């Protein structure tokens, strides 16, 4: 066991994992976080807390994760390279572990021009690959990047992201291989709408034997409406939604009917993903729609969640 986290144990024992996402508020009001925890706690295995996602300032991931730990829910703390240098990252790792956080997801981070402080200096002292390697060094060798020994243990389950849909395609495979070489334990992918492309990527991953070195959680995002689908397709970096999917959403109508269709489609996608070799779980990104996780999990046959049997 690298960290002993619930997510790690479930994946170790071969359970198909289900993680969800929680977006913190644009302010210090933790009641928002508490409310979302209640919606998610029993319907998934671990909850990602985003970190100034799309470069918009929100309650920091570390504080929200501490809240989850206190509520007995497993967090996955996201950390971007955009806002912190290597000192801050290592200090935040200490802080997170001290509060009971065990799962850490290393991200490069959306460029700050996307967010509400485009004039900020960006950091990117490290990239996500280097961050993964650094965390591994902290955990397995007990020293900081600069070489000094760490006082105490740093049990971590190290995560990373992967985008099978970016260009160039060959690089997407190489990048995952690099993250594995750097020491990543689990990966969450960008949301999948282009199934053929995802299958192709998985084929290459399996060919290289990478699926035996890292747990892969396939990302999915339920759509609320055709409008949302079009917006995501055109405005969100790294995501393309094929025409047939937008058409299906358009055909579903509006409001509740559209949302139900979105949930249905998401559940179908999950069921399809379960059949693909090398996929160890799913990561559901229901942006500001945490209520959707339960029906999605239900329809995908993922409830109730398994319990940990490995000690």
């Amino acid at each position, binding site marked *: 066991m690298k960290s002993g986290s619930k997510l790690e144990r479930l994946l170790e024992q071969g359970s198909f994992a289900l993680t969800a996402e929680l977006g913190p508020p644009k302010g210090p009001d933790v009641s928002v976080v508490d409310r979302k925890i209640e919606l998610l706690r029993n319907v998934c295995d671990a909850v990602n807390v985003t970190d100034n996602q799309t470069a918009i300032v929100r309650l920091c991931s570390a504080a929200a994760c501490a809240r989850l730990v206190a509520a007995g829910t497993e967090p996955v703390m996201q950390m971007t390279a955009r806002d912190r240098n290597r000192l801050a990252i290592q200090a935040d790792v200490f802080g997170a572990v001290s509060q009971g956080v065990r799962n850490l997801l290393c991200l490069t981070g959306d460029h700050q021009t996307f967010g509400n402080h485009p004039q900020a200096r*960006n950091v*990117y002292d490290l990239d996500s690959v280097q961050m993964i390697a650094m965390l591994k060094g902290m955990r397995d060798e007990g020293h900081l990047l600069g070489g000094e020994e760490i006082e105490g243990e740093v049990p971590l389950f190290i995560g990373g992201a992967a985008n099978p849909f*970016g*260009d160039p395609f060959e*690089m997407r495979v190489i990048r995952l291989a690099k993250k594995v070489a750097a020491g990543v334990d689990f990966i969450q992918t960008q949301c999948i709408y282009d199934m053929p492309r995802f299958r192709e990527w998985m084929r290459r991953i399996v060919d290289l034997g990478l699926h035996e070195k890292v747990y892969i959680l396939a990302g999915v995002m339920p759509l609320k409406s055709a409008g949302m689908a079009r917006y995501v397709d055109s405005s969100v*970096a790294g995501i393309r939604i094929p025409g047939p999917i937008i058409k299906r959403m358009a055909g579903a109508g509006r409001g509740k009917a559209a949302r139900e269709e979105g949930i249905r489609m998401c559940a179908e996608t999950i069921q399809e993903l379960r059949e693909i070799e090398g996929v160890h779980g799913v990561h559901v990104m229901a942006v500001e729609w945490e209520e959707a996780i339960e029906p999605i999990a239900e329809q995908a046959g993922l409830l109730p969640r398994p319990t940990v049997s490995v000690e």
Partner: protein
Amino acid sequence: MIVAERKPIAEILANLRQASSVAVVGCDTCVAVCMAGGTKEVAVLSAALRLAARQEGREQLITEACVERQCEVEFNEPLAELVAEHDVILSMACGVGVQTLAEQYPSAVVYPALNTKFMGRPEELGTWSERCLGCGNCVLDKFGGVCPITRCSKNLLNGPCGGSQDGICEVDPSIPCAWQLVYDRLVAIGQLERLWQVEPPKDWTTSRDGGPRKVVREDIVP
């Protein structure tokens, strides 16, 4: 080369209104090549300043001058009289030239007329783009001659990030994804295996992060 462009006129004028005499001094090296501060540009700005003074009913003497390279004191020496005779020296050189004049003539008031942008190259007539930000430890050998520090918006050494699509950077459609360029170049020269290496964290002390830098050739200093 160093690439710069003229500041907005309003900003330049704001610093000049109190002066009764201004010497506009250009530089005929980098900023002449990028058409921002050479002899021609000095003439245009000076004409504009004279017209502005007339419009605003101000008496202001504008004198034009240009030196070969404003970052070297030898070239600026002939300016001594000009500097002494004018209230303000408006330098049309890059930031290095402006500072050289200020260091060389410490009692002179020297203002910049340009915004110095980057080290780059002309892509076509009238377009210059950034290529090097002087990180102090060149790794172009590892990336097929494409610099990811400068040309990747996130200066990744193990890129690309998830936002690279169709060879374009997520930040702006006019920015090519540096990692697409690196990939294409390494494929072209048969060195793709370089991309499988995990690049360790960069030592930023050789860059500006380590403080202002200096290069000394011990074998040359007197």
